């Protein structure tokens, strides 16, 4: 066995299929994308004219919609981190303390949004938030708050907020699952010891649970930012970036540029920047959370 792994040819042969797959499905598309980003082609198969860095200069200096889409994606990432994840951690702890049958039942209930298809979620929220027939507006009517009624997804002022709410809601189950697994891994002894020392409630969790969840939090932060940047399906199915670009997100913008506006070269330039932004965000979030794992 040892001889096999010392043999360079054998190592190469073992690694080659994986590397080949990686190259063909990951590296080659990025390189081809990079090539197209320097052209003004309408679609693959049409005339290709090299335009140098034109696409990039237009994108970076003349395209407000791109920056808006990027801003919205980052806002969503911040929304995930600041709103979704604290709630996830809170509920993970609650679930853990609940115990017994109720724990299992609520665990299932909280995870339901994650097993529903994105299409169903999108259509469901479109109906719930419909200004005329939607449940939310009907409820507001019922309690006499009709001044608060809105065309939630259809007005520029409320569309982004509603969209963030839907996405945070839809991703809640996943976050909860990770944190719940993390909380379950914390030894009960620690809590007992803390209780003997007189710690209780909120303070105990702040000082024990949260620090011990750090490795989970670090992974989740990175995932949250990448999920936010890649967000596409729900937006595409509900508002398609509208009204008036108010819910424009990077991936939707990229898709529409490539397939609706037939600006394939330009869309590829967006995708290259997209990759760079994702890498940068991952690097930064890794840096920020790269503390040594807390050990007790």
């Amino acid at each position, binding site marked *: *066995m040892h*001889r*096999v792994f010392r*043999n360079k*040819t*054998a190592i190469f*042969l*073992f690694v080659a*299929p994986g590397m080949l797959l990686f190259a063909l499905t990951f590296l080659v598309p990025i390189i081809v994308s990079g090539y197209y980003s320097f052209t003004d082609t*309408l*679609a*693959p*198969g*049409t*005339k290709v004219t090299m335009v140098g860095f034109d696409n990039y200069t237009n994108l970076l200096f003349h395209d407000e*919609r791109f920056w808006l889409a990027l801003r919205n994606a980052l806002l969503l990432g911040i929304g995930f981190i600041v709103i979704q994840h604290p709630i996830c951690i809170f509920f993970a702890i609650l679930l853990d303390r609940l115990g017994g049958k109720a724990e299992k039942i609520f665990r299932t209930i909280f995870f339901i949004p994650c097993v529903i298809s994105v299409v169903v979620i999108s259509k469901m929220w*479109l109906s719930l938030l*419909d*200004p*005329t027939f939607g449940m939310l507006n009907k409820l507001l009517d019922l309690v006499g708050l009709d001044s608060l009624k809105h*065309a939630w*997804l*259809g*007005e*520029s002022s409320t569309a982004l907020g509603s969209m963030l709410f839907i996405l945070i809601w839809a991703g809640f189950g996943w976050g909860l699952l990770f944190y719940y697994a993390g909380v379950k891994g914390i030894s009960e002894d620690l809590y007992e010891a803390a209780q003997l020392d007189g710690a209780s409630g909120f303070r105990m969790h702040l000082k024990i649970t949260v620090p011990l969840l750090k490795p989970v939090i670090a992974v989740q932060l990175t995932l949250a930012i990448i999920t936010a940047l890649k967000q596409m399906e729900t937006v595409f199915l*509900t*508002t*398609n970036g*509208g*009204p*008036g*670009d*108010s819910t424009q997100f990077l991936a939707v913008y990229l*898709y*529409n*540029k*490539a*397939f*609706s*506006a*037939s*600006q394939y070269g330009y869309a590829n330039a967006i995708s290259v920047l997209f990759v760079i932004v994702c890498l940068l965000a991952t690097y930064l979030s890794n840096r920020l959370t790269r503390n040594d794992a807390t050990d007790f």
Partner: protein
Amino acid sequence: MKRYSKLARASILTLAIASVGSLAACGSDNGSSTSDNNSGSGDSKVTLRFFSNLPDRKSGQGLAEQTVIDNYVKANPNVKIDVETLAEEPFKNKLKAYMSSNEPLDITMVHGGAELNTLVQAGYVTELDPKQYEGEQYNFLPGVYKSFTFNDKLYGLPRNSDYEVIYYNKKLFADNGVKVPTTLGELLDAAKAFRDKGIAPMSINGKDLWSFGEMYQNLVLRYSGNQNLILDAIDKKTKFADDESFLKAAQFLGQVRDAKMFQDSFMTADYGASQNMFTQGKAAMWYMGSWEAGMATNEALPEEFRQNLGVVKFPVAEDGKGTLDDLLAWNGGGYAMVSSSKHPEEAKKFFDYLMSANQWAKTAWDTGAAVPAQKYDLTGSESEVQKTLTDILVNAASTSGASAIDYGTPKFKDDIQNALGKFFSSKQSPEDLLSALQTAVDNQ
């Protein structure tokens, strides 16, 4: 070789077997497609792939299309036609994806103008010989190839005469004592009257954005009385600031916005949602095209709605030069043959059959699904909606021949639609809208 251990040898062997296996798989793939190619002349089946934007195969245009396909398959038992359908917007996107991968479809629905232009540039659709489609068998109306012709070459055939009208619910108008509008002023009055009663005055598919473009073109036509004005602006022969009709039209759109003429959810409503709103009697009017004639005979819709369905021409502007009979008409939808087809000869046979005047045109008209782009005979059993639509087309004093949003590049279409979407979802001034439209023209 001697130094290789058992494990290494085993792995090399596995790799070798795997690669032979996958090569063999490719080989058998090729084999089956060759046998497919040969089957055209023999008794074995040929399968044609047909891609359409009409997912509803039980009513309207989808039913008409399916009827022609069924007719053909009955007459040609050796042919099987695989139909793939998607709703309008996903259809457009998937067709581009098919084009990118040169998918061997045989016949596809196409949208004339900007959309088809991209397919032509990619060489994805086959050139047609217009001479072949002259004469009795096809009976195309004059001038209908405009959106399907690029550099004097024809790449598709239109299936309908498309023109924008307002469908309205007679009962809602009568019950609420509202006059059916013939002028833009009356249209705003009607909007206000319905709003006061808590009824959505007009339904529109704002998420798809393109109906805004048709409405703007319609308004420019009503103010200027000149079908070519907006097309000239897109051709850069004139500017949006040069003719006050452009500004007046934009100002009217502003009034529409302020009067809340469209349903509350209009910016998230796609085609189906806007149609449902209207067919369920929740909106008094629906701004849409003649291709929806089939609503009057669609039994899936409530009887009460069908009996109360009416059609009117787009209203005139009180201070405009256009008349009621200047019609925003073009030929948008059609069919084309795909160049990567595996059975070009069989595909051509079916294509010609489909486009024959006694097939698509007759079926579409007889079932009340649409107004064809070919000559058709009145059968006497037409619905009232069909009769009105025929009158509107026959009495048109002028027709535009092109839809403005499809008149430029796909980028222009995207830009102009987004400019209009932005206008309707913000408090932007009409002047700002004009400059956004001008920018869209300049950057195309």
